[in-house]
């Protein structure tokens, strides 16, 4: 009779006790190592050509590319899990400045993942990059400057995007995470199953890549970008591309200390997430 609630309780305990943080970090380490290896072959002058070369011609290129792709995906998903569980457990909050510094790693992680898609240089990556450039340009006053600094794809190709994927965002992320990593180190020996799983996935699964071709009537962005892509149909670029994605980040940065107020922030975060999932689903239907 009581099996189902027991099972639920068991799953909840399993989720709460999982070492999300450590797993996130180990996936990030694998992503960094495989990323450095890929950079040896990658050429930002001809992004699509060099991605195709890595995928099709370079010995073991397909494996290293898959390892970089799947470890990065694992990193992002585990990071989401880590954040949710930390909020769920209502662990003691850091002082505001330290909290913001730590939480800044989340938008940086999104940017790292996103620039990775752009660097593929295929139809999806190219469109994603151009959309990001136009979203940046829609920001009043500082938009042009921000675009010159971060994307500038129309003028510079993927040169600047590559620079930030390789150094800029990595350095910012390291800065934001440094105090956290010193406090909670992760050990490889505790995560051998995860490492083996990522290795196995990289051997057996194909990494997505889409060539430009005639009859390409619909381009779907990266999976985490689909909701935004849908929203950009209805609202102005600035509202859909900047304000909407900034809402959860700002909520996270300024999460109230008091439990009662914090509940409201959680409700808003959950509502935002549900809305984003619905938009993603609508966008997915168009594929």
């Amino acid at each position, binding site marked *: 009779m009581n099996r189902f609630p027991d099972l639920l309780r068991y799953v909840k305990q399993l989720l709460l006790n999982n070492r999300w943080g450590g797993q996130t970090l180990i996936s990030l380490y694998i992503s960094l190592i495989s990323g450095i290896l890929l950079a040896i072959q990658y050429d930002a002058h001809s992004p699509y050509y060099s991605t195709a070369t890595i995928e099709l011609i370079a010995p073991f290129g397909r494996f290293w590319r898959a390892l970089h792709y799947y470890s990065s995906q694992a990193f992002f998903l585990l990071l989401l899990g880590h954040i949710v569980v930390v909020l769920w457990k209502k662990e003691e909050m850091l002082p505001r400045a330290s909290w913001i510094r730590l939480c800044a790693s989340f938008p940086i992680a999104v940017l790292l993942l996103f620039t990775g898609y752009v660097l593929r240089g295929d*139809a999806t990556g*190219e*469109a994603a990059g*151009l*959309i990001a*450039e*136009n*979203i940046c340009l829609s920001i009043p006053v500082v938009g*042009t*400057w921000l675009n*010159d*600094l971060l994307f500038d794809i*129309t*003028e510079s190709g993927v040169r600047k995007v590559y620079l930030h994927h390789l150094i800029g965002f990595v350095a910012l992320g390291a800065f934001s995470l440094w105090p956290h990593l010193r406090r909670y180190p992760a050990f490889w020996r505790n995560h051998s199953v995860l490492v083996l799983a990522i290795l196995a996935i990289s051997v057996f699964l194909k990494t997505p890549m889409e060539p*430009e071709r*005639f*009859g*390409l*009537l*619909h*381009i779907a*962005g990266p999976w985490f970008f689909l909701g935004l*892509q849908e929203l*950009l*149909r*209805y609202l102005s*670029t600035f509202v859909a591309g900047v304000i909407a994605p900034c809402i959860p980040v700002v909520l996270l940065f300024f999460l109230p200390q008091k439990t009662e107020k914090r509940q409201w922030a959680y409700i808003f975060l959950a509502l935002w997430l549900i809305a984003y999932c619905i938009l993603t689903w609508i966008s997915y239907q168009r594929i």
Partner: protein
Amino acid sequence: MSGKTLPHSSAKSRRALLKRLFGWSVSGALLALLYPFFRFTRYQPKPKPRYVTVPGPLPLSGYRQEKDFILFANQKGTHAVSRTCTHLGCRVNYLEDKEYIECPCHQSRFSQSGERLAGPAERNLPIYKVEVQNNDNGKAQAYVVELV
């Protein structure tokens, strides 16, 4: 007490003043660095003028899709339309059967002459100048598109 040594509080306030002055000058120097920072990062070298030659004559369909533009050459005339969508910059395609141009990202539509027909884009597609080079028989041998 010797006359040369300063009273304790006076030395303290002088140190505080020096510290504050130092702090202000560091902030000033950082602010001054912002100017060369912005000037450097915002500098854009002028792009080289680009001329793309498309060999003629065009197929019977009367159009040819290149990386940056779609070239139309028919009885009405010759013109090239940019492939950069005016909504968010994705690369648009010409749909021959439907006779309009469509963006794969958000499905904005444009006519052959680049006029906006539907979708979230608000502006028309830019048009590029085309120079037609004819052979001795008066047939188009090449089209030179000027990308600006």
